[in-house]
């Protein structure tokens, strides 16, 4: 009964917090809502016309949606780069901010789920995936495993953050016996979501560009570059506009980790490039398509070189202690990493895998406007979700928003 009381006040208080803010906050929320609305409108076009509103065709049957999905799985998995130092090493500067990483994971996974939903031809048949009424084709289908891994990770992070915040709201520490096992579990779960997502591609014998044993390690390592880059920038923005504080040491530690991961990421890319170019089998065509173009088809080429350039520049920037500990250079580095990894991992991963197609045809895929608008809607919705979650979490962590005995009594 008492818990119910706590919960009631928590929910009511949270709603109040979400609804109040300064002009800038309202403008931001209105902007995100507008993005979401545009996306919804574009999606209704797609629902009534079919996926013909996208630029996807039989030759390139996955594209912008699935690319974004892949990138965002990485962002979600990267929460683990905060969870490990925070809980495994009990390092205070990161422990203070770890919740934000987990909240970002919740928002990112939600966006992932939405990107998959908009990509499928019959979203209303989603229940076919639910074991019982439908069937989940495990162990053979990698997408089926991905559904399990992603939903598991979403639930896990949602429960971890909600439980922690709810306890703090009651001015209690979380019960370690409940809390810590969940946190431990979230570490392999983070690795699992990105591994399974990589296996979704790597398991396809039809696509030599994806059918590589190092795809999963590449996914994970690049996620540990781009995820923290997103987090670092978001946290500085938060610091600017709220009472949230992130210590310099935390930022420096995260950027140091990013330097190592980026180095490893480039090494793995190099290994892949060597294998393809030196062997010089038909399989190299996909890399040709990325880096030089094939028979005049070179839409991706400038993007890919730009991405590789960004990643190298960021690596050297972060490798040097002085430059990664310079706030301006660090932010430039984050931006470079974001662009580098985003291009390499979304369009740069999905499109060359399908171009040329399995019978050698080249269809140059460029997302349609409607496709871009649907994606904008999803990102807007994810942003809205993250904004609200952060808006509620910050005063709880600051100790400003907590259960008040009197307020509850008044209501009685």
């Amino acid at each position, binding site marked *: 009964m008492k818990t119910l009381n706590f919960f009631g006040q928590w929910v009511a208080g949270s709603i109040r917090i979400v609804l109040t803010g300064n002009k800038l906050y309202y403008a931001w929320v209105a902007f995100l809502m507008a993005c979401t609305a545009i996306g919804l409108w574009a999606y209704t076009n797609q629902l009534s016309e079919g996926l013909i509103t996208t630029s996807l065709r039989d030759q390139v049957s996955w594209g912008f949606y699935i690319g974004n999905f892949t990138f965002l799985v990485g962002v979600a998995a990267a929460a683990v780069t905060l969870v490990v130092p925070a809980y495994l090493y009990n390092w205070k500067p990161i422990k203070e901010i770890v919740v934000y990483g987990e909240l970002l994971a919740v928002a990112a996974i939600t966006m992932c789920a939405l990107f998959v939903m908009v990509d499928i031809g019959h979203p*209303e048949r989603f229940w076919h995936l639910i074991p019982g009424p439908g*069937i*989940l*084709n495990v162990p*053979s289908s990698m997408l089926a495993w991905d559904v399990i891994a992603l939903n598991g990770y979403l639930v896990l992070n949602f429960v971890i953050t909600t439980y922690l915040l709810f306890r703090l709201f009651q001015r209690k520490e979380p019960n370690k016996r409940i809390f810590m096992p969940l946190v431990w579990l979230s570490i392999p779960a983070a690795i699992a979501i990105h591994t399974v997502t990589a296996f979704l591609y790597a398991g396809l*014998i039809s696509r030599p560009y994806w059918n590589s044993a190092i795809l999963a390690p590449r996914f994970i390592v690049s996620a540990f570059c781009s995820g923290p880059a997103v987090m670092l920038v978001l946290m500085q923005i938060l610091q600017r506009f709220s009472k949230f504080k992130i210590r310099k040491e935390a930022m420096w530690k995260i950027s140091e980790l990013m330097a190592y991961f980026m180095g490893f990421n480039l090494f793995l890319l190099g290994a892949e490039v060597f294998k393809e170019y030196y062997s010089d089998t038909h399989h190299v065509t996909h890399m040709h398509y990325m880096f030089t173009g094939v028979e005049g088809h070179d839409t991706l080429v400038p993007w890919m070189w730009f991405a590789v350039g960004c990643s190298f520049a960021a690596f050297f920037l972060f490798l040097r202690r002085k430059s990664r500990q310079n706030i301006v250079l660090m932010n430039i580095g984050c931006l470079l990493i974001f662009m580098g990894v985003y291009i390499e991992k979304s369009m740069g991963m999905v499109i060359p895998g399908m171009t040329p197609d399995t019978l050698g*045809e080249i269809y140059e895929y460029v997302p349609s406007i409607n496709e871009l608008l649907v994606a904008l809607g999803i990102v807007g919705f994810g942003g809205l979700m993250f904004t609200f979650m952060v808006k509620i979490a910050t005063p709880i962590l600051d100790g400003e928003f907590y259960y008040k005995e009197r307020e509850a009594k008044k209501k009685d």
Partner: protein
Amino acid sequence: MTKSVSRRDFLCSLGGCAAAATAVGCDNITHSKFFRSRFKELGEEELERILKELSTENQERFSNAEAQVSATGAQPGVEFGYALDLSRCTGCRRCVHACVDENNQGREEEIHWIRVLEMEEKHGIDFHHADPYYSPETVPEDGKFYLPVACQQCRNAPCVKSCPVGATWQEDDGIVVVDYDWCIGCRCCMAACPYGARRFNWAEPEIPAEDLNPNMHYLGNRPRPKGVVEKCTFCIQKTRKGEYPACVEICPVGSRKFGNMLDPDSEIRYVLENKKVFVLKAELNTRPRFYYFYG
């Protein structure tokens, strides 16, 4: 039977789903479609009812009283095999169009189950130098040969493996089929297929009423909705009744051979035993039931 009924009951009790279905404004047929079980789990009576429903639906939609949807099962002792004589094929593409006429593909976006690739003789079978859009005045052209590709009906099918909901599977006679009412349209199977054999209905497939082939099969050529995957079924509606697939019937040079591989007297067995046959992309271990040979 009991299983599928309880399944529907379960789903109906999901208020959300029912509400969603109502919100989209569905009549009885869409309602029955939304809650329809996977083909493999339909009970006999339920299948009968659905087949009747589908037949009536198509009779009305295409004003064709002959429209019938059947679900003839695999015949015992039958495993289909296909062989194509590359030295005879002239690249006329009559098979491509006969297939469309037979299998009720959408006409507007021109879904073709067979893709004929023009290849250079000097390169041999090399997909990277193939042209599916060749259009000379007359075929065959000097120095070229033609490689028609459709579903290879693999024994070790990567598409079947990849489907998250089990909407595509291999029947006992070897035909890989798709349940259009169960497919969620995620296109994993298309990504998985090494032969580019699967087609997606990117838009609502339009078939002019006079073009409908009224002899239809549940797992074959009945009209598909948008947003699902389809592919060659060896003309399941014909071959399970002992007829040849449309592409075999139309081929003017007799390059296409089809039959029951378990029947020692069949033509396909003769080809397999007396010709040097090969399969496409053998290194992928998909083990196709579709063979090629030089006659």
